[in-house]
């Protein structure tokens, strides 16, 4: 570690403080405003004098916000579970077996990591419509079930896994699924947990895809719901808008507060940016 000379150290303290403030302040203001009663919203001071939950209640009154949250929660849970199971099976095949074409198939997985959804959305959108999935959970879940990044990460961890354990398991007569469930899974719990969080945040915060494939409260996610609310009110209903914004940020922030260090490390090592 480097020790800076005094003037530089002081500059650093000031710069960091300002940076920190420029991040914290807007967020605190949003939080504060979401608890302000209507008559305080446009008042000059940032914090609510008579905090109230009215704005939160109003969000659920004015919008089918419960339905949006339910869609988000359910599709995120289903999608992330599916992504994890499918990726774990694939990673296990790559790490455990030698087979013809393994190198080529793995190259396809690596290649897919570099193909953003933006380049593939058009045919997928047309296909989803043809299948009659428009505005349904299936449209949100199925096209995103294959997560190359997850396969890549899990494979790396499984490769460093001692082969003796697999052999011991099969000698004891354990089938493949049994081995996966009772030998492999308990040993990669930390990676699975970290991966779950990354996938969860990625899915919960998704914007483009739910924007184009959902239309009504049948499938519309909370992110899109809030966006529609912004359109409808164009900022006239600031209190409820800020309450909605706080609500949809809550899950990710809550998970973060619980597992701060690990989450930062995971995101940095994966290199994902929200």
């Amino acid at each position: 570690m480097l020790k800076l000379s005094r003037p530089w150290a002081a500059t650093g303290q000031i710069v960091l403080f300002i940076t920190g403030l420029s991040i914290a302040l807007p967020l605190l203001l949003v939080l504060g405003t979401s608890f302000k009663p209507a008559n305080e919203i446009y008042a000059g001071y940032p914090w609510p004098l008579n905090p109230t939950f009215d704005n939160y209640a109003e969000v659920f009154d004015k919008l089918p916000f419960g339905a949006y949250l339910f869609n988000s929660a359910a599709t995120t849970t289903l999608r992330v579970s599916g992504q994890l199971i499918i990726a774990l099976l694939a990673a296990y095949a790559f790490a455990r077996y030698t087979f013809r074409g393994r190198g080529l198939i793995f190259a396809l997985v690596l290649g897919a990591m570099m193909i953003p959804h933006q380049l593939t959305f058009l045919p997928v959108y047309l296909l989803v419509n043809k299948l009659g999935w428009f505005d349904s959970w299936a449209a949100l879940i199925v096209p995103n079930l294959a997560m190359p990044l997850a396969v890549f990460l899990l494979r790396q961890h499984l490769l460093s896994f001692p082969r003796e354990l697999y052999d011991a398991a099969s000698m004891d007569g354990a089938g493949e699924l049994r081995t996966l469930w009772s030998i492999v899974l308990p040993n990669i719990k930390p990676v699975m947990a970290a991966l779950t969080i990354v996938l969860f945040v990625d899915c919960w915060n998704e914007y483009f895809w739910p924007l184009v494939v959902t239309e009504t409260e049948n499938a519309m996610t909370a992110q899109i719901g809030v966006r529609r609310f912004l359109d409808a009110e164009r900022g006239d209903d600031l209190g409820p808008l800020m309450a909605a914004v706080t609500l949809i940020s809550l899950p990710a922030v809550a998970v973060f507060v619980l597992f701060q260090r690990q989450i930062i490390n995971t995101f940095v090592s994966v290199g994902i940016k929200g």
Partner: protein
Amino acid sequence: MTEAINTASVAIARPTRRRRRLDIRPAVFLTPFIVLLGVFTYWPLIDTVYLSFMKLNTNAPASFVGLNNFRGVLDNSQFHDAAINSLTYVFVSIPLKVLLPIPLAVFIWTIGERAANIYKSLLFLPTLLSFVVVSIVWIWLLNPVMGLFQSLIRPFGLQMPALLSDVGTAIYVIIGVGAWKLIGFNVLLYLAGLSSIGRDYIEAMRLDGAGDWTVLRRLIIPLLSPTIFFVLISTVVFTIQQVFTPIDVMTEGGPLNATTNLFYVVYQYMFQSFNVGFSAAGTVILFVFLGALTVFKVLVLEKRVHYS
């Protein structure tokens, strides 16, 4: 073809090897993933190229139109604006999102551990928030009538300009909002890079009488250069892809196409003008651009990895 190979190998291989060839277990485990990848990633990639040469009609079957879609897109002034804006997004983003985080990371690296941890958590927070949330927050802060900044400067008799509806400033607001979301994450990437720099080197330089600036320039920046390169490329990719959300939430590409980018016009061709061919042709152009970037990244990063 596989069948031919299998019959050939049956003739040569001993029975044990043959059994291994026929092991279907890896195939079973891989099938769900490979099928999904094929249907939702690789086939669409190819189909997009196919669609870029077609004209889709509602009543008649699709017809081949050659390069017409590409010509149409390249002649389209909206597309020109988008291409120029994409370059603005990328180049203005670099000093803000790639270079500015370096000193911030060095400062955090040099303060005490407790303060460093607080700053790390704080800087990470915007990564977790969705771009929708971040965009809405900034729309409110910058609102010229009832925004927060307006209420702060009103007592001084100042008036907040309407930055988001001004052709000259709107794009910089979106770049700034993207920077607000991304800077902290890049700082953390740099900190990960810094943590691998040995104390001994620095102390050796100190003994030779090197000041902060020399240590920074001669030691830290060179050793950090692979990280800088990684941050640069991933930030460029991020800027091209993820900026869709703030564009759509804050300006919808306006005013007068001032904030639209290549991906946003592709979206508009599809969902506003319902022109599948144009949208596909635009995507192919975007693909070539992103593909070149990816190849560049792989080539240079591979080299760096071998050096270190």
